[in-house]
């Protein structure tokens, strides 16, 4: 059996090469010939309208879906055919997918339990994550008894528990109201700065993508339209589609940042 990563794992660079996927034979491709490189430790926002193939691409990275053509590499190693459980990725589902029959702590412990880690190690790691996620004291709760924002943090803690080399998040803030959303977004950015795990964050919210990511990739009907830093994209959208897709944000927000991440004035909470 292949060894499962469980202790601190170095973040992996992700290489996506000419990946295509269609769901029914002869149907239009959900992901069409996408090539993309995400350097280790960076946070990429996968942006695009609904149905553009963001979830499908993310699931291909996780090993929940297998491409019809193309290759996925983590740190230069071909993982295209590697089953999900051996990929060492953390995945936060759009609906959280918390196990309803388990408590918050048991959910976070799950990835360690199935790896048969020693009890005291599991307990310590769960404690550590509860603190990191700022949900200390919720460990004994049933997951049905926590708020949406808290459930989100539990899902993230569960994904991070086995020290994944790659973190994948599918519209993690989609189901939350604006206020919680903005707060969590900021917090996630800081968390990423701290953990530096290579992350792919799916969103259909331009503002969110630009505010949080090191890199932004724009998908349109399965094709990759553009991949660049937020600043580059804002300066040179490079296609009418990207331009149009970003126009709401450009009109509605004052862009002030110039550095690694673009800051959007009204997205910045008061300190």
């Amino acid at each position, binding site marked *: 059996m292949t060894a499962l990563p469980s202790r601190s794992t170095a973040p992996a660079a992700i290489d996506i090469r000419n990946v295509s996927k269609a769901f029914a034979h002869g149907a239009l491709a959900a992901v069409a010939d996408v090539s993309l490189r995400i350097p280790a430790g960076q946070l990429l926002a996968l942006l695009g309208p609904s149905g553009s193939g963001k979830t499908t691409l993310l699931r291909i990275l996780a090993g*929940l879906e297998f491409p019809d053509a193309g290759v996925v590499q983590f740190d230069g190693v071909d993982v295209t055919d590697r*089953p999900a*459980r051996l*990929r060492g990725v953390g995945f936060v589902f759009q609906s959280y997918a918390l196990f309803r029959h388990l408590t918050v702590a048991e959910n976070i412990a*799950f*990835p360690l*339990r*199935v790896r048969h880690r020693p009890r005291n190690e599991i307990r310590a790691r769960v404690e550590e994550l509860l603190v990191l996620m700022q949900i200390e004291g919720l460990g004994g709760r049933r997951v049905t008894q926590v708020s949406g924002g808290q459930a989100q943090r539990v899902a993230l803690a569960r994904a991070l528990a086995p020290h994944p080399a790659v973190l994948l998040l599918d519209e993690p803030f989609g189901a939350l109201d604006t206020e919680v959303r903005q707060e969590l977004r900021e917090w996630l950015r800081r968390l990423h700065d701290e953990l530096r795990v290579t992350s792919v964050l799916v969103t259909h919210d331009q503002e969110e993508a630009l505010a949080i990511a090191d890199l932004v990739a724009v998908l349109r009907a399965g094709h990759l339209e553009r991949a660049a830093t937020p600043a580059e994209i804002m300066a040179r959208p490079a296609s009418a589609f990207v331009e149009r897709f970003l126009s709401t944000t450009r009109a509605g927000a004052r862009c002030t940042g110039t550095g690694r991440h673009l800051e959007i004035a009204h997205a910045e909470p008061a300190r």
Partner: protein
Amino acid sequence: MSRRRVRPTDDPAVVRWVLTALALGVFGVLVGLPVAVVVAGALRHGVEAYLRAITDPLTVDALQLTLLVVAVAVPVNIVFGVAAAWALAKFDFPGRAALITLIDLPFAVSPVISGLVFVLLFGGRSLIGPWLIAHGWHIVFAPAGIILATVFVTFPFVARELLPALEAAGRTNEEAALVCGATGWQTFWRVTLPNARGALLAGVALATARAAGEFGAVSVVSGHIRGRTNTLPLHIEILYNEYDFSGALAVATLLVALALVTLAIRWAVDAHAARDAA
């Protein structure tokens, strides 16, 4: 005096009363009374006679065979039902709908035919029957035939209770477990099964009640050898046909109790699911 306001979907009180009374009345006469009569008839000659009837050696023999049948048929059902529910609820493949129809088939087939098929397959006049009998393998008119017929009749129960539950849960839980690093088995035991416990329990309860209570199919294959191939329902029939009415009803109370326990389990499971959903 102001007129009482009624919402457009509230039936007038009179209608509510009449319909409720009608439903309770129909249920009382159609279902309640027969069950009451079983209990009353069983106790007609007193508690002592009742206890004597249900501890009669022949009753105990029948109970033992019934338990044996349940002990074989229900596990077979669980294995098949869990496998079928997993394949049919979590995957889509060509022929899936046809397979579901096939699983339902025993529901639609007359119990008498369910017994007949095994007589035709393994009886003295079948292709392999004489060979089996020559080698001492008795299937028809023997416990093996009763078990086979019971497996046939109860085949859909677990699958049919589990399938909607697993289907409603979708695949996300399993996918979450896989990316967490769980193997297929770990996913099934630690995630799928705990979330479908209730449905599984209800299916097992229904299958148990039916396996213990099956009459038509078992009647055909049993050959009515007293004390050897009688299950409880067959024993009840014999007592009844010998005009030992209170004895028949006494033994029947055992199966009535089993049916009530089954319904109670299913009711509790449904109530639990409803509370979870809320």
